[in-house]
């Protein structure tokens, strides 16, 4: 490689090229930011309830068992489309009732079955969480997941 280029050339290519790609990435980030806000998540308003629901989701580290839009742990089902799977994505009240029923039935204690812990949430927190999951479900994720199984 000595003949092809010197160390100084290699260093300059590294610096110059990296700055070039960082600038492209920043430009695309700005565009993607606007696209998310104005297009892909614009279908449903981001209400205070949705924001609080996201906090409920984070406080209990749900992501360390479940996946959300395919990201997270792989120990429990995908929840980015759980409201579609339950058939309640257009019915917030039903979504709340179904989620409440589910959360309050845990843990099942069935031997050999993965256990979801019992999270002691208030009705308002469960409603916020349901609204958050509905909001996430309505995000334009380019057709992912391939089917309702998530």
């Amino acid at each position, binding site marked *: 490689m000595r003949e092809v280029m010197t160390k100084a050339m290699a260093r300059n*290519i590294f610096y110059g090229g990296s700055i070039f790609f960082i600038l492209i990435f920043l430009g695309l980030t700005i565009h993607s930011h606007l696209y*998310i806000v104005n297009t892909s998540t614009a279908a449903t308003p981001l209400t205070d309830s949705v924001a609080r629901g*996201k906090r409920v989701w*984070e406080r209990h580290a749900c992501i360390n068992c479940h996946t959300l839009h395919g990201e997270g742990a792989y120990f429990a089902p995908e929840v980015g489309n759980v409201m579609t799977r339950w058939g309640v994505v257009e019915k917030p009240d039903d979504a709340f009732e179904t989620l409440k029923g589910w959360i309050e039935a845990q843990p099942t204690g069935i031997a050999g079955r993965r256990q979801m812990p019992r999270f002691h949430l208030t009705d308002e927190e469960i409603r916020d969480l349901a609204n958050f999951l509905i909001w996430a479900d309505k995000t334009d994720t380019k057709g*992912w997941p391939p089917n309702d199984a998530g």
Partner: protein
Amino acid sequence: MKYESQKIAYAYFLVAMILFVVQVSGGLLAGWIYVSPNTLSEIVPFNVVRMLHTNSLVVWLLLGFFGAAYFVIPEEAEREIHSPKLAYLQLAILVLGTAGVVVTYLFDLFNGNLLLGKDGREFLEQPLWVKVGIVVAALMFLYNISMTVLAGRKTAITNVLLIGLWGIAIFFLFAFYNPHNLSLDKMYWWYVVHLWVEGVWELVMASILAYLMLKLTGVDREIVEKWLYVIVATSLFTGILGTGHHYYWIGTPGYWQWIGSIFSSLEVIPFFLMMVFSFVMVWKGSRDHPNKAALLWSLGTTTLAFFGAGVWGFMHTLHGVNYYTHGTQITAAHGHLAFFGAYVSLNLAIFTYAFPILKNRDPYNQVLNMSSFWLMSGGMAFMTFVLTFAGTVQTHLQRVMGQNYMEVQDQLSIFYLMRFGAGVAVVLGAVLFVFAILVPKREVVAPGPDAKLSPAE
């Protein structure tokens, strides 16, 4: 040890190895919960075990990088570390933060508190006060090593190492930005996660590897450093836009499917180059360095990183493939071998190289150390294979046939059982490694009469 302040690395490596054992033990427990799901389910649920597993991994790898910097930089810059006191204070802050994290997770203290409670975004679950502590420690570290490098000799190795470490700190700042919009949250979350492990961490890896090659093979510095710049150039040229492979399905624009597919496919290149680099240097090198275990780990890290990060990454990175495999056990398989190959093995390589020097003794107990390499690597390779099979079956049943998640999981139990067995081998290997580094007072198996060793460097 040429410089007194290199001794700082000893403390960092020691804490890192303790956390390494904690990390793999946590992994083993998580693997057992897959086999027997009722284990501890009401005392320490799976999500808590997993947080401990992933967080302790990241912390010990970073401690290893910090320690490596304190070990490498005095020799490269040809002067003592600016302030050893500051370096120990930095370690104390990180240890305190780590202890705080463990207690907070285990007992779920201050749930919901913005400052003290956990912040449950994946890998960034640390409470806010710990994140602030990490930034303070990072600033102390960067100040300390930058002052050392600026006052001393500047080499390509310190240069790239410094850029990598500054990058780690800068991208971590995105951990403080958590918008209410989930898709925005995810997009900037990858600024920390992807631009760390597929960006600036590769710079740290390549520079430490270059240092090891320089010492172990005796190849001319000019050649090593030119390789280094070429390798890190390909890392960033591919890795920055390669972030796009995380932007397929989270609400980001469709053009990422093309940008992500193309650039992340090219992310194989830096790992391939690192592998070629290490083998060419060893082939060309004239030095017969006595620390054979360090050489084994150095070649091992580039080979396993090429397969784990490179090949296994490419396997599911094209968007047409990823549409079906995203978020399955395929991802878990790739994640395990990539982290083990690239960053765990690299850290163990520099530990293996540095410890005899830090303890001022010959590099003995080589046989035990090399056995631990094969035990851990074998275990991790087996784990990667069985998780890949599990992921293949899962992808077909769940993503193609549309079967319900838990029904599919029930059919994967044989793979999870084998994964647990592989995990046992990894944990045994890790314990053996720590033992081989710290305990024996003489070589366990005497070398044969023909083994001619040149003096240690």
